[in-house]
């Protein structure tokens, strides 16, 4: 609750700071700002952690410097400027150089990348320590974190992997299925934590589901058997003229499968963040123009509703992790299926 209040006050602060005192409060700008990536890691109030900027351009090569050099978009550094969290190239008169801007590639450690690295390290620490306790507690009942994770691992193994892929092939997909499940779940939760080191919309940023789906796609292709391709190009037991319709659909299906994974995860998580932020914005919309009573009056029902949505998002967080893992397992099951005719 306190954390939510803190983060909401921070949002309001950032909204007003950038827009100036007399500019009306713009919820859509605030929401987009919080959902999109940023070049600094906001901690609390006006305190933000500057992040390294890494830019590659064919003209200047690789450049690395701190994002604090931009002074929140107010200063030009090395011919670069930060404009709405995008790095643009400017000429000596501070005018946008579109051709040069199109050429640079931004490899910066952004808010999302920093959170990503943090989460990955967290995952590695958690699961290597769980693995250690398996070695330590060999032949004994699980204890501590191990007993929390074990039912989930067993669920993924027995009810997702074995059920969808089959006893024969499931083992080689287990590392991937476990990794995506815990990856998505942990980052969904990190995204729901409103203060440092959470708050970044990692799984709701389209790039993350894209990579997860691409890895899934490569797994499907790499492990697909003969039967899988036969089912795509020449579905057995179907008249030839139907194949002319079916085969293109099936070929599209190869690509639709990962696409569905991307859109589902991205849309669910981003929508959750937007809903939460919209409710917070209500407070500031009602309290805008010095109407403190309106702001505080709205805050009470909004808080109640936000807590409800937050609980819902916790559920959505694990549900989307489950759905992604389950669908991936079903696709793997299709890929390794053997001829039954």
């Amino acid at each position, binding site marked *: 609750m306190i954390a939510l209040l803190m983060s909401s006050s921070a949002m309001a602060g950032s909204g007003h700071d950038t827009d100036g005192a007399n500019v009306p409060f713009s919820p859509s700008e605030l929401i*987009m700002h919080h*959902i*999109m*990536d940023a070049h600094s890691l906001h901690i609390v109030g006006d305190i933000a952690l500057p992040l390294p900027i*890494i830019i590659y351009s064919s003209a200047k090569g690789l450049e690395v410097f701190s994002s604090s050099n931009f002074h929140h978009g107010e200063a030009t550094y090395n011919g670069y400027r930060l404009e709405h969290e995008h790095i643009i190239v400017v000429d000596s008169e501070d005018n946008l150089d579109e051709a040069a801007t199109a050429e640079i*590639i*931004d*490899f*910066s*450690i*952004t808010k*999302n*990348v920093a959170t*990503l*690295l943090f989460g*990955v390290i967290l*995952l*590695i620490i958690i*699961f*290597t320590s*769980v*693995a250690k306790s*398996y*070695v330590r507690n*060999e*032949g004994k009942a699980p204890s501590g974190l191990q007993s929390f994770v*074990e039912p989930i*691992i*067993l669920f993924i*193994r027995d009810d997702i992997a074995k059920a969808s892929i089959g006893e024969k092939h499931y*083992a080689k997909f*287990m*590392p*991937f299925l*476990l*990794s995506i499940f815990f*990856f998505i779940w942990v980052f969904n939760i990190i995204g729901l934590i409103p203060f440092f080191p959470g708050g970044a919309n990692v799984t709701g*940023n*389209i*790039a*993350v589901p*894209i*990579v*997860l789906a*691409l*890895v899934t796609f490569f797994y499907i292709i790499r492990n697909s058997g003969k039967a899988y391709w036969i089912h795509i190009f020449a579905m057995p037991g179907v008249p030839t003229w139907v194949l002319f319709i079916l085969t293109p659909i099936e070929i599209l299906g190869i690509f639709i499968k990962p696409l569905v994974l991307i859109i589902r995860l*991205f849309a669910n998580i*981003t929508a959750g963040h937007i809903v939460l932020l919209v409710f917070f914005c209500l407070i500031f919309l009602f309290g805008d123009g010095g109407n403190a009573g309106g702001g505080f009056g709205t805050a009470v029902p909004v808080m109640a509703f936000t807590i409800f949505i937050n609980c819902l998002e916790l559920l959505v967080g694990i549900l989307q992790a489950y759905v992604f893992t389950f669908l991936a397992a079903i696709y793997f099951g299709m890929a390794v299926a053997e001829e039954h005719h």
Partner: protein
Amino acid sequence: MELITPQIGLLFWMTISFLTLMFILKRFAWGPIMGALKEREDSISEALDQARLAKEEMDKLHSSNEKLLEDAKAERNEMIKEARELKDSIVAEAKEKAKEVTDKEMISARENIAREKTAAVSEIREQVALLSIEIAEKILKEQLSDGDKQKQRAEDMLKDLELN
């Protein structure tokens, strides 16, 4: 539109970090965890199998015990029966022997009695004869002291002899 345009930087870092994460977890977490889980499940199912085997063994033992018990009972009954028969035969034999002995004793006793009796009778007879002789002597002496009577007697005797 910006929302659904992936940034190359994030794609790059995401690919690297996710593949690294998967590699490290596969090597240092999922491998040992899945191995340990499988091992534990195997050991549990093995223990269950062993328990079932032990139960079967127990059942087998139980039935063999029962058989043993039955055999033992039968043997005991047999033994008791034999013992009873033996006892009966011993008793019968003893009875017979006792009877024989008593019979023999009775016979010898009877013989003894008979012998004693004959001896006694003969002795009595002897005594009676002696007594009779004595009596006769005394009578004779008395009679002979009285001549008439003697004469009378002699005549009576003679009379008897003649009658015979």
